[in-house]
């Protein structure tokens, strides 16, 4: 028993937790941004993550076949990220336009059901494309390990933790400091007032989807490189967990989503030490239920507009 709690193990789980937590956080940001503006859970967000991962895979495979990947590994990785983010952003925009925008005035159930439908549709599109076979990311980099004191960390883990942190910081600055960011906050706070102020609400909504999808795509490429197996269902459970993270931190709240994601990742990594590992998923679901019942506003509080 004392072996479980040795410093080395705790440090290892810390790294595990931060790694998966960073990924949850990136996906959670997409949920939270969209919810803050449209009050709807973009149920298909997990599929946007999945498509991003596949786009990155396609890019890397293409580069591999043309001999580019071995010679310029770093550039290849960047190209994969770029390809993924572009594809997902496009997908997110189409999704918004086709499945959500027509339902903005409809009942509250309709967009959610439409989102569920879109999610199922996208999963099965990919299923047909890959013929049900899981795909494997090409090995772009070799995983190398560093021992720093008690910590054992790999270059991949560093990339994910740093990368997600940078993206999150970038998003935060974007929302706080740029004009578009301000417009996004305005639309989230009070849509009609923002429209009256001359903000093109539809455009802002589209930008929100683009950003959220791009972040999810980045997470998708990271997951692809780190775990190497990707399939058409890979977005489903992470999608729910990321939504849990967003709610944990306070829906609509950008720093909240980041915090929620990291918290969930750590909870899973450490939680496994105390229970049989097959219950790992239950941690997320249980957290979700508990938070929504006892503190629905989340850790940092919600940021959603006032009710009329």
């Amino acid at each position, binding site marked *: 028993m004392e*072996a*479980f709690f*040795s410093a*080395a*193990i705790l440090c*290892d*789980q810390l790294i*595990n*937790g931060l*790694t*998966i937590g960073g990924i949850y956080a990136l996906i959670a940001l997409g949920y939270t941004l969209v919810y803050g503006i449209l009050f709807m859970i973009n149920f298909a967000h997990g599929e946007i993550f999945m498509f991003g991962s596949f786009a990155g895979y396609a890019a890397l495979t293409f580069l591999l076949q043309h001999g580019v990947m071995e010679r310029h590994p770093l550039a290849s990785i960047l190209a994969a990220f770029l390809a993924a983010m572009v594809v997902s952003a496009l997908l997110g925009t189409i999704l918004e336009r086709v499945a959500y925008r027509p339902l903005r005035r409809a009942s509250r159930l309709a967009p959610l059901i439409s989102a569920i439908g879109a999610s199922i549709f996208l999963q099965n599109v990919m*299923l047909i494309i890959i*013929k*049900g*076979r*899981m795909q*494997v990311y090409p*090995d772009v980099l070799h*995983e190398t*390990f560093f021992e720093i004191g008690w910590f*054992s960390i*790999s270059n991949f883990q560093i990339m994910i933790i740093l990368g997600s942190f940078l993206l999150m910081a970038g998003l935060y600055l974007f929302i706080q400091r740029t004009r578009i960011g301000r417009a996004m906050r305005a639309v989230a706070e009070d849509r009609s007032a923002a429209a009256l102020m001359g903000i093109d609400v539809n455009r802002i909504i589209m930008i929100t989807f683009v950003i959220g999808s791009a972040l999810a795509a980045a997470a998708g490429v990271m*997951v692809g490189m780190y*775990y*190497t*197996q990707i*399939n058409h*269902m*890979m977005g489903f*459970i992470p999608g729910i967990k990321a939504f849990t993270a967003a709610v944990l931190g306070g829906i609509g709240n950008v720093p909240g989503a980041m915090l929620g994601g990291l918290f969930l990742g750590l909870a*899973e*990594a450490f*939680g*496994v*030490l105390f229970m*049989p*590992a*097959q219950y*790992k*998923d239950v941690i997320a679901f249980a957290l979700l239920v508990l938070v929504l019942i006892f503190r629905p506003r989340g850790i940092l509080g919600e940021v959603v507009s006032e009710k009329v």
Partner: protein
Amino acid sequence: MPRRSFPTLLPAAILFLLLSLPAAAAEWGAIRIPSGSPVKIGMGTMLTGDYAGMGIDIMHGAEMAVKEKGLILGHPVTLQTEDDGCAGPSSVVIAEKFCNDPLVAGVVGYMCSGGSKPASDIHNKYKVVMISSSSTALELTSRKIPIFFRTCWNDRIQAQRAADFAASRGWLRAAVLHDKSDYGQSLAEDFAQHLKTRGGEVLAMEGVTRGDKDFSPVLTKIKPLRPQLVYFGGMSAEGVLVVRQMQRVGIRAKFLSDDGCFTEKDFIQAGGRAATGSFVTYAQEPDPAWMAHFESIYGPRQTFSPQAYDAATILMMAVESAAERQPDDSLLIDKKRLRDALAATDHEGVTGRIVFDVNGDRTGSVVALYEVVEESGKRFFRKVPF
């Protein structure tokens, strides 16, 4: 809507109809293939979904056998494939479909034990024989259902062989993982139990969730226990991730798994360098000539196509021996005779000699050990003498 009369009339009518139905036939009966009609071999396997690769491979094995056979006593033989979804409800529905199809003589199926179990009950009702090439759960033969046979082994044998092998190599401190499925968990538990009888120590027994990718937490949890061996009961989708992440987490132990990981594409190729040095249990390597022929048509094989090929072959052989040609050129296949013919099989298949014990299990099927080795840039399974 006439609400008053409704409640009283309807139940009465239904009861009347229910009771007037004839009892389900318990005798065996016979199958009649009219002149000019094909003899159908049913095939229940997974065509879409997580393990579709394995399922389609199974179909190819049976398909090859059926195409090679071509005719039984002048009637064409055809294979009718249905998607059993590797689950109960779909397998049951297809079982009903096959068992009620007057041209189906027998079924090669089903793919997963979770589907074969309820399906075998249905087959037993209609007395239609079924031979599975991949359902390895123990209960399928421990219940003594006369119409069930299998050309694969049962899991207890596989797990015990694995434990014997581990003990023979001196890997007595083992951490056991499984994917919390019927198949994986049964294997893992049998392995653990048998290893203990050989003097081993099971340091941990943990489950992972199918579909999950992140096993670092559970692997980090077992790392301080310093296992010499990690045994994984489950399929390649999770197995390959375990073997990769074992390396990442820094567990210096051998990896031993079951036939679910015996697959070129989804384990060796997907596992990369991390898969080298892993061990899996599987049947004797099938006849290389057959393998070359199969792969020239269908590409690299997965796991159970040889067993499916053999299953279809012996089924057709049994039909051929049990069927009686009638004057009008139809075929009469007495179901009991068919079953007995199948039970009496003694055939040299591509997977070895096929003989069944009284429960439908294959006797003498030896489980072999394979290691993933790398030679001149190629990685493949090599049989380990044991």
